[in-house]
């Protein structure tokens, strides 16, 4: 066996561990005595390990989200996060209304008395629907008085700034949670 060189295929099968025990023993015996075949075997082994270490290509973190979005798969958002998200909308709406009312009162377009008159005139118009609207209006007024006292004459700009900050933080939290959930 030492007179003739081994074929590259035989050596590759040894590298791949695809030879039977007896075949592998015979090939290894030849390698012990043949410098040339031993060198070829060495290069095939090194090539094999180099190929096993070929670099992997990586996709960005947005890839999965893009695939799910295109497939119209909506991420599951836990109940607590949905509450936070909706609170952000409610606070935002109240802020907008408050600013609008403040602007109207400040410019004299409407007065606090007009707000009361509007409330009472709505209450007078008709029975059950008016009562319902009246109570909603009451709740809104109380809320506005609590959160935006400056609109009704006793407040401070600090409340508005704090409210805006809270809305902003809730919006950021909402965005962050959605991004995490979609990964």
């Amino acid at each position, binding site marked *: 066996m030492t007179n003739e*060189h081994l*074929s*590259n*295929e035989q050596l*590759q099968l040894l590298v791949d561990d695809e030879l039977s025990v007896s075949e592998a023993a015979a090939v290894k015996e030849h390698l012990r005595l043949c*410098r*040339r075949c031993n*060198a*070829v075997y*060495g*290069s*095939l*082994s*090194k*090539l*094999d*390990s*180099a*190929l*096993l*270490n*070929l*670099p*992997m*290509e*990586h*996709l960005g973190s947005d*890839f*999965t989200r*893009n*695939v*799910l979005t*295109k*497939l119209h*798969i*909506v*991420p*599951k958002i836990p109940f607590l996060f949905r509450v936070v998200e909706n609170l952000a909308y409610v606070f935002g709406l109240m802020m907008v209304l408050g600013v609008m009312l403040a602007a109207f009162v400040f410019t004299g377009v409407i007065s606090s008395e007009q707000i009361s008159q509007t409330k009472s005139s709505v209450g007078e118009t008709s029975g059950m629907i008016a009562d319902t609207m009246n109570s909603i209006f009451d709740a809104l007024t109380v809320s506005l008085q609590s959160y935006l006292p400056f609109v009704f004459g006793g407040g401070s700009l600090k409340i508005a700034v704090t409210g805006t900050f809270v809305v902003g933080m809730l919006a950021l939290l909402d965005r962050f949670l959605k991004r995490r959930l*979609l*990964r």
Partner: protein
Amino acid sequence: MGATDNEIIERIRAGDSRKYALLVNRHKDKAFTLAVRLVGDRREAEEVVQDGFMRAYRNLEQFRGDAKFSTWLYRIVYNLCMTKVSRRRWQPEIVDVHRGEMHDNVFVDEEEIGFDERLENEELKQIVVDEVNLLPEKYRTPITLFYLQEMSYEEITEVMNLPLGTVKTNLFRGRNLLRERVLVRLKGEIV
């Protein structure tokens, strides 16, 4: 250890489609690596892989589970890559006659070149990467699947839709051709 691919697929079939994110995260990089090797362009490869994942999801009912999900996915990605390459008539599969196809027992004086010692070098690893990318597709694909995706011969036959003998032959010839080209480059650098 997380759920297996088949367990995740069962949950998706049961209606929890959001679980598909787990499969995408698990297989996206390997699928992308295969696509980059085949189409040669990262942007196009990303499009192909995205398309592959979408097709896999839409045809998930056809996945029987007798093969691995990864094998099925890579087959989809492989076919999309082949379609893209053939459409743009990307570089024809002509082997450089000066570089030559490797034939069994071509004698290269490896003792002089010292192939095995030099392969420790990072530069030589880069040579191997470069030369893999320059191999004809019929060799490049099985080598990528065999080493990067760690697939068996049988799985490669499923992806490439080729007989087992052809896959084995192409893998063997591809590695021989690769070895010859690396040796030629080493020889050139020595001279």
